């Protein structure tokens, strides 16, 4: 049984069919590339998988469990975590708090214990603080931990988003164009980072327009166009697929 089984996912907006009968299988520990021209429906598929959008129809089995009717936040509890194409940080909160929020599902303080500030809550809070700082160090953000997130540079914001996602202890990580707006060296470290993430046992689905990045890290690739799957296979297979070249890669390939 694969970790992720997506069957016949369809998503419509009014009359617009953004996704039509998408099937996709992802094995545990895999890095799965998802490509396609602008407007192909990649982000929409992410939204459906993460629970931001309700699928019009179809099924999403995660680790043997049907999760298609679960809410977004409930799926996070199962380890389905995403980043956003248009970065969405908690802009008026500090960098540290942004990462701490990643621990939300992994901690248990409730309204009452928060107010009582019990020993357990304090212990938990210390744990979150340590772990968050640790994560920030790993991503090289420790110096800006007390800055408001909106004051970060674009590259730092991207890294913070990944730090927050990792704090959620994902089993499946959906990365939506993480390299967008990064310079070459940043892209290079990102690539290493994605590989490191894989070694942590996290399955990744990666949407990326940066082909050098995508082709080198992906085990499998699915290609969408106009809301439909037009190809899938290894990077080598996909790169020479004439339909993919025509629809996406362009004749220059």
């Amino acid at each position, binding site marked *: 049984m694969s970790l992720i089984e997506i069957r016949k996912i369809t998503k419509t907006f009014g009359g617009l069919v953004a996704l039509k009968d998408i099937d996709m299988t992802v094995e545990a520990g895999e890095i799965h590339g998802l490509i396609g021209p602008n407007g192909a429906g990649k982000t929409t598929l992410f939204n459906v998988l993460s629970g931001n959008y309700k699928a019009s129809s179809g099924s999403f089995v995660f680790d043997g469990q049907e999760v298609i009717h679960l809410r977004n936040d409930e799926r996070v509890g199962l380890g389905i975590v995403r980043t*956003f194409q248009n970065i969405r940080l*908690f802009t008026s909160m500090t960098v540290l708090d942004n990462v701490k*929020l990643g621990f939300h599902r992994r901690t248990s*303080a409730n309204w009452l214990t928060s*107010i009582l500030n019990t020993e357990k809550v304090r212990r938990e809070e210390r744990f979150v603080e340590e772990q968050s700082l640790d994560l920030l160090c790993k991503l090289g953000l420790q110096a800006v931990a007390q800055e408001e997130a909106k004051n970060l540079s674009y590259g730092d914001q991207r890294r913070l988003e990944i730090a927050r996602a990792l704090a959620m202890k994902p089993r499946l990580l959906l990365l939506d164009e993480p390299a967008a707006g990064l310079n070459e060296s940043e892209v290079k470290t990102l690539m290493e980072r994605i590989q490191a993430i894989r070694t942590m046992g996290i399955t990744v689905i990666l949407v990326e327009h940066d082909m050098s990045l995508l082709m080198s890290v992906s085990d499998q690739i699915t290609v969408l166009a106009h809301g439909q799957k037009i190809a899938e296979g290894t990077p080598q297979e996909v790169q020479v697929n004439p339909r993919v070249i025509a629809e996406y890669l362009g004749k220059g390939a």
Partner: protein
Amino acid sequence: MRPQRVTSILWAAVIVLAAIPLIVDDQYIFHVLTMAGIYAILAISLNLLLGSTGLFSLGHAAFYGIGAYTSALLTLRLELPFVAAFVLSGIITALIGRLVAYPALRLKGIFLAIGTMGFNEIVRLLAINLDWLTGGPAGLPGIPSPEIFGVVISQPRDYYLLILVLAAATYIVFQRLISSRTGRALLAIRDDEIAARSAGIDLTGYKVGAFTLSTFFAGLAGSFFAHYLTYVSPDNFGLNESFAILAMIALGGIGNFTGSVVGAFLLVVIPEAFRFLQEYRELIYGFTIVITVLVLPSGVVGWYPRFMRRRKMAGRQALAVKEEG
């Protein structure tokens, strides 16, 4: 500000306030401070919705009224002791707040504001119309003074000390909450609902929770008010009251609980202090609101840390330039 510093400033403030009766013995001053204390609780609790969670609720006075009437009825009709009525009115108000929250949260932005305004009017009009329950337009007089474990509170000074304890407790509760996991989740919801959901935060659960806690304290404030004036009537809980609480929050700084206390204090004291201006008093009140929002958009208290931060930043930039050069 660091939590430790907040706590030490808080304790210093409470000690100073608690010492007031040693210095002055003036019923009127106690009365004004007592009213400020009630409004501090109201402003802090509404600030949790408005400032921390980003819910534009304009019906807080309705919950204040529900608390007041509940407590009045529990003591007058069921002859419950004050302590029981006080706690129960908080709980009952919170339950109603919870009930209102579920549908209300479908509304966004100004629609939520208008919906809650409508709710406020409905509650006031029901208080006028449901004579058999609420005493109708004449209200419910003769509410007993609080009796806490055998000690009867009836002097303005005693009321003042009691509300001081309650307001300080409220402040601590909300301040603790907001710096905890729960509070962080609320702030995240205010910043970006979609990102918050994607961080695993149950939006409805937290919003309803915020409504529940906020209305719980509004109910407590209402109960205290009822037993303080020993009289409740529908006039006390109209939209004007909701607007006044809103103004206190804005004056002190949206999302800032210390600010809410300061705002409540200022907007209770300023109109009292300007009583001698007679008809011009309302003008002063209006101008206070307009000018504060224009000049200090982040409030009297919010302004201070921001100003300091700006200076700190300027300093840091100057340093950076030096290093480069």
